[in-house]
């Protein structure tokens, strides 16, 4: 399928469309895009399922409630649908482990899992991720969000350097 895959869209054009989507979210729901909040709600539901939600801990309690009435959970279901549809129409659906030419599958997956977990810790402390803090909070000029953008980009460049052989 990759042989027939269409090239990706122009980043500036896609960014402008994404900005308009964000603007619609502000104008309709009075809130922006997010991703990690949906994960926090799923984590809370999982803990709740085994009777382990801590009383008033300030984090899980803020994400408690029925998943299908949670704005970010519903939005992320949409992300899965939209991402799948876009890739399907462009011939980009492909079961694969994306990695650099020199990286092994095991190394790539180990780094993916470890990096994901580290991001999880960061997103909890920062109260959001690239979506909720950078895109949404950045567009609303929130001080904490711009602090997040600066520190996340700085750390990503620092850590990507010793790992560059994974991708080149």
């Amino acid at each position, binding site marked *: 399928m990759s042989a027939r895959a269409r090239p990706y869209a122009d980043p500036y054009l896609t960014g402008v469309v994404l900005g308009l989507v964000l603007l619609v979210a502000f104008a309709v729901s009075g809130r922006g895009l997010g991703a990690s909040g949906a994960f926090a709600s799923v984590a809370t539901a999982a803990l709740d399922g085994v009777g382990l939600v801590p009383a008033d801990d*300030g984090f899980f309690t803020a994400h408690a409630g029925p998943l299908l009435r949670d704005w970010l959970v519903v939005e992320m279901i949409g992300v899965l649908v939209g991402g799948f549809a876009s890739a399907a129409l462009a011939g980009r659906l492909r079961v694969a482990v994306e990695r650099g030419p020199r990286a092994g599958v095991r190394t790539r997956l180990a780094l993916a899992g470890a990096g994901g977990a580290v991001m999880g810790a960061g997103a909890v402390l920062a109260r959001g991720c690239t979506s909720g803090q950078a895109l949404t909070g950045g567009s609303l000029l929130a001080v904490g969000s711009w602090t997040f953008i600066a520190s996340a980009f700085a750390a990503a460049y620092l850590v990507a350097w010793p790992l560059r052989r994974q991708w080149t």
Partner: protein
Amino acid sequence: MTAAPLVALGHLGERGDLAAALAIGVAFGWCLERAGLGSARRMMAQFDLTDLVVFKVMFSAIVTALLGTFWLARLGVLELGLVHVPETFLLPQLAGGLIFGAGLAIAGLCPGTSCVAAVTGRVDGMVVATGFLAGVLATGVTLPALGGFFTSTALGALTLPALLRVPYGAVVLLVVGAALSGFALAPRIERRRERVPA
């Protein structure tokens, strides 16, 4: 006449709000996939400076939404005070940003793009998303042990114009100017990188 946000002004109920969330999510996922951000290799090109795609997509989105909110508020269509501004907790967000950025460079995808990668068949995306969920769970459980750090340096829904005591439009202009300069410089940064083999 103020017409938005629709939900806060009572023009749209809970079902409508959730339907909007679904539609907005579909468009969000579509954009991430179209830009190629569901691909870890493409996303990581940002960090070895061969293709600044993350910067280009993110900052053209921020500039668009920023100008849109500014003008809709200026024209009295959008009541900006009713849009939820993420609250600032300076030190946890500084530390969280550093940890998040490090994790991003290790994982090759961010939480949102890992979902797009996963649903389009990329196994590494599924593993990033699973790791992320585990990290959120573990850190959430650990939070009480960090004492008051999570809620320290709370500054409320503080914005840059309020902090700097300058008009909103001045900061909008600054961000737009910085982004446009970055867009103009991007090809030079990318080209220079190509000439010097890593």
